[in-house]
């Protein structure tokens, strides 16, 4: 059988080991095993490490605040710091990020204030930050929908001849949605400067990956779109950074889209209202805890003599400062203006909304009856 006629069934074929540059023990892998990628400079790795530690502290702090009932919900990215931070670190200032609800620490790494990240999880308006200024789309809830937005934005940038790249974060589960397929395909056909980073944390709420797809790896899906796909150890910040950076560069230089799978693990529950004991073993969680992305990078940096005690203390202090800021912003009472409800729905003013606004204003003034009656009376 000529091999190029049949697309080999891969169901039974074991997934290859993911690309890594630093192994579990914190050692650099052999050049021959590094897939042509080189370790990022030590300052870059140190920068990633710092951001990961700070992000972890933030994540742990927010989860704690959520347990105390200070936030309505919080999807933690604990254990996924290498994917989140490396993805953001690979971007230039003019690039755009299209995150999901899971990616709060990616926003943090791009400079968004804790209070703005957490606004919607506290129950306030979606997000407080300036999307255009930060070049970050609002965190998306309807799964995979934001991937299409990223492709559209990247295409617009290309049409305008800007050197802007869009990067979108997706979950493993989200790749099952039709929108993910359409995004991958549009990107490949239009050669859009976009990078898809799929954080394969092995669960979509309770559903494990083997109930989600029968393919060997998510990266393999790239073949069906004619774009490069990379299967990367998502707990190796060095590898994630190297591969995402290469993809961002390729996109920026007209090379089109890339699909990158970071194999990682969701250590926490899906959100605070989830009960993971119903669908997975503590032993699995413990195993993945032992593969911690921060510890791995730390070991490497220490072995390289690149992480002094002073530096660690400094990072720890920065993390604590952020945690304090985060706690503090939770104590601030958000100012809620009910009349703002009507303000942003349309750019063009609508009479009906003005009427409804007036109705609510009157109701708030304790003058509900007068208000409700106005309309009827005025038209009688």
């Amino acid at each position, binding site marked *: 059988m000529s091999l190029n006629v049949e697309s080999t069934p891969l169901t039974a074929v074991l997934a290859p080991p993911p690309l890594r540059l630093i192994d579990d023990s914190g050692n650099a892998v052999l050049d021959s095993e590094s897939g042509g990628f080189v370790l990022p400079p030590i300052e870059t790795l140190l920068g990633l490490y710092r951001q990961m530690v700070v992000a972890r502290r933030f994540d742990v702090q927010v989860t704690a605040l959520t347990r105390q009932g200070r936030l*309505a*919900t919080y999807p933690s990215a604990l254990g996924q710091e290498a994917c989140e931070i490396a993805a953001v670190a690979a971007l230039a200032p003019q690039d755009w990020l299209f995150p999901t*609800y899971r990616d709060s620490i990616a926003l943090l790494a791009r400079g968004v204030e804790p209070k703005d990240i957490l606004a*919607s*999880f*506290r*129950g*306030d*308006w*979606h997000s407080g930050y300036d999307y255009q200024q930060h070049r970050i789309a609002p965190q998306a*809830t*309807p*799964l995979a929908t934001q991937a299409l937005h990223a492709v559209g934005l990247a295409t617009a940038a290309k049409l305008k001849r800007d050197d802007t790249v869009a990067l979108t974060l997706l979950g493993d*589960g*989200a790749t*099952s*949605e*039709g*929108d993910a397929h359409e995004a991958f395909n549009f990107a490949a056909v239009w050669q859009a400067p976009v990078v898809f980073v799929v954080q394969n944390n092995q669960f*979509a*709420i*309770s*559903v494990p990956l083997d*109930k*989600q*797809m029968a393919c060997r790896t998510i990266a393999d899906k790239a073949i069906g779109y004619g774009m490069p796909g990379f299967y990367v150890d998502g707990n190796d910040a060095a590898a994630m950074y190297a591969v995402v950076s290469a993809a961002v560069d390729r996109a920026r230089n007209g090379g089109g889209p890339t699909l990158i799978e970071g194999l990682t693990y969701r250590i926490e529950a899906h959100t605070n*209202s*989830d*009960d993971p004991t*119903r*669908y997975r073993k503590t032993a699995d969680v413990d195993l993945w805890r032992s593969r911690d992305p921060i510890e791995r990078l730390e070991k490497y940096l220490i072995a390289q003599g690149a992480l002094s005690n002073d530096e660690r203390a400094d990072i720890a202090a920065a993390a604590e400062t952020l945690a304090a800021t985060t706690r503090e912003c939770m104590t601030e009472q*958000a100012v*809620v203006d*009910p009349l*703002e*409800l*009507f303000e942003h*729905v349309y750019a063009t003013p*609508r009479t*009906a*909304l003005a009427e*409804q606004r007036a109705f*609510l204003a009157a*109701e708030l003034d304790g003058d*509900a*009856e007068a*208000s*409700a*009656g106005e309309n*009827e*009376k005025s038209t009688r």
Partner: protein
Amino acid sequence: MSPQQTLETGTGVRAPENLTLAAALNAAIRDAMVDDPTVVLFGEDVGPLGGVFRVTDGLYAEFGETRVSDSPLAEAGIVGTAIGMAMYGLRPVVEMQFDAFSYPAFQQIVSHVAKMRNRTRGKVSLPIVIRIPYAGDIGGVEHHSDSSEAYWTATPGLTVVSPSNPADAYSMLREAIASDDPVIFMEPKSRYWSKASLALPVQTEPLNRAVVLREGSDVTLIAYGPTVKTALATAEQGLAEGLSIEVIDLRTLSPFDDETVGASVRKTGRAAIVHEAAQFGGYGAEVAARLTERNFFYLAAPILRITGFDIPYPSPKLEEYFLPTPDRILAALSTWEWS
């Protein structure tokens, strides 16, 4: 409360229990699966987790992977495969995790589920139940509190129902699963945890019948799903103000029970409909329009709609201003000229 009888089922009659609406739905699916081997259940997280609202709790353990299964994460896929299963004689019960997440399945629902029977001239029926947790008042973040009933009720070929209490939840879901027509089964999220003492299996009024939950002589207040509780509270509060409010729980949104509701409106001469969804183009428009068409000369005043504002469902901190309350309803009623 609609009159209750017990239902014939292989699962036998049980002692009265204090059941939440969610638990009643769970029991309905379970009993249907025991009685009818063609009933299958699938969707996102309905297996070992038992659904994000635990409506399918324990069913995976009881019936196993072949009858209860977690599907890949894709709503068109869930509804589309349910169609194929129904064509082969199964009765799939599928779950859309939240209301807004039924939208990816919109084409499968509107172009196929709703039309299959008609386009095959009655030769292919699709006995599918699509369960959709809907509406707000649970502090949900964006996209988690939509009320999509207007989309489904505007679609010929669909039967759209929404229970407001545990007894109806059980009875209506059993009936929906047994129906040869596809049913959009809308579950009011904020009522999942409301309780009633029930001896299962219970059978309430049949689908397609509205029920007068509380009699009154001055106004007919029409509600369904999450707003039934609000309407009952309004009636209570109205009584204190000397207003006798008749409360109707529609239960089935499509078809509309013109008979029951029309009779009440002709009796009271005044009616109002309460729902969470935005007013413009909402389901209340149909209720007001058809009641007016059919009962115009009995009406002393225009039919009012007390609904959400014409804006996207707001964030938790603002939902209290969005949702109809007894005060707001009574204020609206007081705008009528009472003679």
